[in-house]
């Protein structure tokens, strides 16, 4: 199965582009599932259909769904939620907000990730097209599995042991019920599944991320930054869609000044994503809604190209070894990051990589674990982290 994930700043037209892509691929004879992970769903609007959490056929070959957080969360960790509710229900003076509050931090991300994995495992479709939430939320989606598994790796066994020993005692002496084993089992399964998903999403032969932007300077700057972040997390961007380009006929009178700005931005866009395919779509004369309009947009966007193709498989991380100096280098592609925005630390077997306000903690490849981080350089958008044997340090 191919997974195509469309992301970008709010208002750039991610949903229309994702929907147009799905329509196009389905029309050329493959089975497609189109999924919206944004809680502010607009996919139904785009297709002129009422969508729900179950795949609904739009036409033979294309199915679409909108993730329902409440429902998915019950499926993913109903037992834990029940347990929390039980604790909270002890003081049941709560109003309606108490029920709403029971949604867990990070829950949105989790639900979306699990649903993507399910679609992959069911394997009923050739292509999965994901309409993702705006940049900030996509970021938290991407880092969530790593964040959660750090927590789980280190904390869970201890907690489980502890409750096993003391749980009964606590329950007897206080009014706190003991969490059932089910709660832990659920959490374990969840973590394992997220790790599986992580591998799938990083595999360039399966998953491609696509950045949607408009030719406005501020939007483009954000797109460039997400390009950096996506690389930091080692996901693969293979194409960029530039949407809402003003047609010549619109840049008249009042909008005359737009022409120059747009020309410069298009130029910048062309230079910003080396090695990635660029697709362009003009601002349409009206909202892109309904299958025929989406098909037309896809035609303009992709021409004869097949959007399910893999347009670029560049790796974000590369390992090097220099036998002369004995230095191992981990090179990370981080375009547009300035040296003042980067910080790197080694903590045990982990590398902690700060880029601007984004921090990733990742497990180092085995060959790097026993070495120490001696320094780094930044050349042509590539961060080179040097690891030496501990004895080399002195």
């Amino acid at each position, binding site marked *: 199965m191919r997974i195509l994930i469309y992301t970008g700043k709010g208002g750039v037209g991610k949903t229309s582009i994702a929907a147009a892509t799905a329509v196009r691929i389905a029309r050329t004879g493959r089975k497609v599932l189109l999924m919206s992970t944004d809680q502010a769903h607009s996919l139904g609007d785009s297709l002129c259909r009422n969508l729900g959490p179950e795949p609904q056929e739009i036409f033979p070959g294309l199915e679409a769904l909108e993730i329902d957080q409440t429902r998915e969360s019950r499926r993913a960790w109903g037992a834990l939620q029940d347990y929390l509710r039980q604790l909270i229900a002890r003081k049941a003076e709560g109003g309606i907000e108490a029920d*709403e509050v029971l949604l867990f931090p990070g829950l949105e991300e989790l639900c979306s990730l699990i649903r993507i994995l399910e679609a992959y495992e069911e394997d009923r479709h050739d292509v999965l097209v994901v309409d993702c939430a705006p940049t900030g939320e996509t970021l938290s989606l991407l880092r969530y599995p790593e964040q959660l598994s750090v*927590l789980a790796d*280190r*904390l869970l066994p201890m907690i489980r042991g502890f409750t096993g020993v003391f749980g009964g005692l606590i329950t007897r002496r206080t009014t706190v*019920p003991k969490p059932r084993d089910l709660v832990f089992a659920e959490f374990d399964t969840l973590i394992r599944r997220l790790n599986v998903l992580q591998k799938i999403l990083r595999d360039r032969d399966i998953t491609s991320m696509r950045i949607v932007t408009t030719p406005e300077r501020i939007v483009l700057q954000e797109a460039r930054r997400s390009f950096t972040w996506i690389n930091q997390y080692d996901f693969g961007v293979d194409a960029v869609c530039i949407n809402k380009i003003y047609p010549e006929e619109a840049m008249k009178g009042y909008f005359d000044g737009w022409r120059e700005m747009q020309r410069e931005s298009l130029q910048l866009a062309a230079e910003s994503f080396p090695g990635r395919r660029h697709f362009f779509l003009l601002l349409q004369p009206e909202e892109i809604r309904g299958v025929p309009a989406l098909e037309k947009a896809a035609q303009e966007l992709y021409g004869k190209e097949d959007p399910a193709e893999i347009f670029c498989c560049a790796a974000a991380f590369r390992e090097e070894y220099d036998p002369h100096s004995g230095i191992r280098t981990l090179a990370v592609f981080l375009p547009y990051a300035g040296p003042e925005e980067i910080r790197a630390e080694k903590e045990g077997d982990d590398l902690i990589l700060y880029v601007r*306000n984004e921090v990733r903690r990742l497990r180092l490849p085995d060959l790097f674990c026993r070495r120490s981080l001696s320094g780094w350089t930044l050349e042509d958008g590539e961060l080179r982290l040097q690891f030496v044997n501990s004895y080399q340090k002195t």
Partner: protein
Amino acid sequence: MADLFIITGKGGVGKTSVAAAHAVSSAEEGRPTLLVSADMAHNLGDIFQVQAGGHVQEIAPGLSLLELDPYLLMREEYPNVNRAVASLSQSAGAAWDKVGDSYMIPGFENLFCLLKIRDLYRSGTYDRIIVDCAPTGETLSLLKLPELLTWYVEKFSPVGRMITRILTPAAKIRYRMDLPDGAAMDELGQLFRDLVELQDLLKDPETCRVRLVAIPERMVVEETRRSYMYLNLYGYPVDAVFFNRILPEDPGSSFMENWQRIQAGYLEELENVFADLVRIRIPWYPAEIRGLEAVRRLSGEIAGLLRQERPPAQTTADPAPDLFHLPVRTDSESYEKTADGYCLTIRIPGGEREEVQTALHGTDLDIRIRNFQRSIPLPGVLRGASVRSVRIRDGKMIVEFRKSESGERKSGG
């Protein structure tokens, strides 16, 4: 009068420009102002064309910028939060020290941002703080966080303390494990008192105002009315809405005239939904707003537009509305829990029972009063509920909901 202004709305509607215009207007009144971005995808630097960052930076007299960086805050300003969490989780037997100082618990990013905003407010360094808030979904979780944590803590904190007291001797003897002492628990308690304080601050119309930004597009209209509902639900004082990117009378081409017609339809809908608020229409500029000068022009324009604006329906507004002193209503909608559901109270002055029709439509409640129709988005909990009764009393409509029998609620073990 309010000195904390939160500007929010769906992504791409121009929140940052509107927030920036607020900040510039305020600074030009001679009041020291701080513009804070709480969006993880920060834009302040782009708008003002400066290199903004995680530390406060003054870019013009009395005007400072800050892009909140939760990791930086966690490390530099609130290491005690992690310490408190560490001691709490150690009391649950977890080896927190193995996780490391740079670990962020999922969902805690917002906590650090909120703490910082509270401290900035309390420091008194600035007369006004303008917060540019992330796209709607995230804002809601930002605003929801104090509520969420207070809930958990009210329940867990005393329990944790008790557990500690009971178990410490046992743990020491049997497992050579150190449980948190009273001081660590106090630290945690302090953290939550801070959050409660912040919450009071955010909900008090005397200190805080929330402002929405929307553009006349289908998806945006839908989402903005939903977040307005949630803001009301949680009791945040919303006083104004900015309709951005409105095409001018003569947009220069038939292509754009077509878009103008599309906008007109959505604008009408927006006007209805936000009838209770001050509404300001900002034109679509033929250039991007970048640089201090451009923001200054926008702020001037907003001040001008505000003078022409109609006051919100059913209020007698001051003769000269000023951006930082707008009237606010806080009694639009409220929910109460009943034995088997919820009771919604909506203010509808002048409505009589005979004229009011209601119908449930998906997750919305449609209300029709004579020719006026409004649909109110309902909170997720009421999904699948049914309307039991509708009453009108003292200019208020009271709708009683009954939760569905087949609800998701399972009785716990």
